[in-house]
């Protein structure tokens, strides 16, 4: 079946511009996570959605970052006024229920801020 998909796969933007990254989770998965992977680093947790509950936003690095999940399915991560330090691979994962269930990762969006 279809896995987690993310778009675009690559995004190059100028410093100061806004960007939107999209994640389509596996159908039926209620939990969705966003992570950031900078060069040579592990994954950094950004935000967690579980069903209709309020998301856990505690990992967002600044108020320039926000995320939405519409209808319990597709999610968008928005970065406003991008900075060069935002350059990274942004990964989305979904799991059946959350908690200790396996997370299935998408291929990521590589963001480059020039």
């Amino acid at each position: 079946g279809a896995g987690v998909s993310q778009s675009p796969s690559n995004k190059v933007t100028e410093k100061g511009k806004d960007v939107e990254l999209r994640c389509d989770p596996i159908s039926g998965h209620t939990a969705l996570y966003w992570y950031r992977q900078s060069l040579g680093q592990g994954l950094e947790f950004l935000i967690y959605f579980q069903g209709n509950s309020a998301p856990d936003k505690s990992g967002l690095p600044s108020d320039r970052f926000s995320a939405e999940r519409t209808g319990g399915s597709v999610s968008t991560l928005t970065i406003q006024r991008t900075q060069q330090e935002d350059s990274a691979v942004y990964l989305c994962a979904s799991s059946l229920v959350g908690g200790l269930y396996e997370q299935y990762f998408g291929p990521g969006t590589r963001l480059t801020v020039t």
Partner: protein
Amino acid sequence: AQSVTQLDSHVSVSEGTPVLLRCNYSSSYSPSLFWYVQHPNKGLQLLLKYTSAATLVKGINGFEAEFKKSETSFHLTKPSAHMSDAAEYFCVVSSNNFNKFYFGSGTKLNVKP
């Protein structure tokens, strides 16, 4: 606070020899721990997880890991490396409410013929 330290950024072994990838964790409660693998140009995949049951956990592709509370370790092992094991491996600890997952910085495993 929770954190994970992967002691080696790169490990190189010969095919057919044992693999040991080291992971130490810090947690203020009894943690749940995971190993994920990332093959080149592929997404992350769960290898195995520890959730307070048996301390020796078996995963896919012949990998296993042992939870040692006294040493705060969760090292990943495999008796005999295959060329296909070459990838990057991440040790992960969860928050106590399982909302957040803290990844180590990764260990790149190279397997020599």
